[in-house]
């Protein structure tokens, strides 16, 4: 499969990339790892006239801490995210999730920014992004803005991304130090994409009661979601097998279940409950 003809330019800076996007008159696409974009182009589902390769912009590889947030530069590959010492220390959930994306070859190319802006409904990262109140950092000619992940992703492959702008990074909230986190997924055996992927962060106070809990679910429907009903049910309670099992029954309540040849809505709903229960047990018991 060969994409239709396009032109190719390299950008040396964010400003240059924005200018190149403007020059393309809406026909340009940003190329980083290309592992979401090139398959679409090969199937001719998208036909940009110019690709703007941003992989030479070193500033987009930065990882930096700002207050209670860790900002991961858009160009970090999933592999780099999975082994970066600051990411492993402050937001291990993101490192653990990145480690489970695709396969080694894909993790060597696919990037944080590309994954988020592509907004695949079965992507792994959105679960962690919802749990850690991620903000997508977007730059255009007028400056930088931060957009909350829940307002950024509108639907499958649909985002609020403004024209002629670049995702420069993703900012994650660093969870309290007494919490633990995990990402568990039931993946499609051929594609490796999550049929249901559950990210959870939780911890208990000095009395042994849950004082922080976040659950995010991806893959189950068109968009990832926070399972806030589960969170509300657990908050303030002492964790036990029974308490977690009961709360996990609410795991599918806050999202809409999708359906395809592989998994019915009923099956996805059940997977949400089972994987939420497993994830919470593994960090709270």
């Amino acid at each position, binding site marked *: 499969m060969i994409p239709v*003809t396009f*032109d190719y330019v390299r950008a040396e800076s964010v400003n240059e990339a924005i200018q190149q996007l403007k020059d393309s008159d809406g026909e340009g696409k940003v190329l980083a790892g*290309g592992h979401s974009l090139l398959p679409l182009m090969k199937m001719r589902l998208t036909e940009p006239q110019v*690709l703007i390769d941003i992989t030479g912009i070193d500033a987009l590889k930065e990882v930096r801490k700002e207050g209670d947030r860790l900002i991961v530069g858009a160009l970090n590959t999933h*592999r780099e995210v999975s082994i970066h010492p600051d990411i492993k220390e402050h937001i291990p959930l993101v490192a653990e999730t990145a480690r489970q994306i695709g396969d080694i070859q894909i993790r060597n190319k696919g990037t944080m920014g590309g994954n988020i802006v592509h907004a695949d409904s079965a992507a792994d990262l959105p679960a962690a992004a919802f749990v850690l109140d991620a903000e997508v950092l977007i730059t255009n000619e007028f400056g930088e803005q931060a957009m909350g992940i829940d307002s950024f992703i509108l639907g499958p492959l649909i985002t609020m991304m403004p024209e002629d702008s670049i995702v420069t990074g993703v900012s994650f909230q660093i969870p309290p130090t007494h919490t633990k986190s995990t990402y568990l997924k039931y993946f499609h055996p051929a594609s490796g994409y999550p049929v249901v992927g559950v990210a959870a962060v939780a911890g208990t106070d000095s009395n042994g009661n849950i004082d922080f809990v976040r659950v995010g679910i991806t893959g189950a429907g068109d968009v990832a979601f926070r399972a806030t009903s589960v969170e509300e049910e657990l908050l303030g309670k002492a964790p036990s097998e029974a308490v977690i099992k009961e709360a996990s029954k609410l795991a599918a309540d806050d999202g809409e279940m999708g359906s395809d040849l592989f998994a019915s809505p009923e099956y996805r709903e059940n997977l949400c409950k089972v994987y939420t229960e497993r994830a919470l047990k593994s960090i709270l018991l």
Partner: protein
Amino acid sequence: MAVEKRNVSVTANGQACSAEVEPRKLLVHYLRDDLGLTGTHVGCDTSQCGACTVMVDGDIVKSCTTLAVQADGSEITTVEGLGTANDLHPMQQSFWEEHGLQCGYCTPGVMIAALGLLKENPNPTEEEIREGLEGVICRCTGYQFIISAIQKAATIIQESGIDLNSQQLVGEGTHNE
């Protein structure tokens, strides 16, 4: 739309190579059609099977999902860079001796993926090898003989003191771990 061809220059298996290509040309077609390195195969063409796996600047990547222009200036290792029929690389020798292939179509990608694994983890457990092969699919062997072959190759490479990271034909690592 008429698009200017681009010069893409790479060091392929230690040799400087270049060709003028359209931006839409995939790396695997550049390697096969422009450089004549037909050892790298196109399998699924959808970045799942890994038959097209090559090493680019020390990282294993799927060359069916990479543009040739993206690889301009890089060092590439394909199966042709491992050894010759008379002087097999330990990985090739081990695949032969352990019957790590049947039809052989996936084998070039599998061997490059295996070398990518051994570069980072010179002495992997069976479990780690199985995990390291997550990006390649073999429809013949059931993987067991591939795993035996990689275990054998790891032993030979360690015993003979071959440094996969410094070996010219196996590129230069870019990760600092």
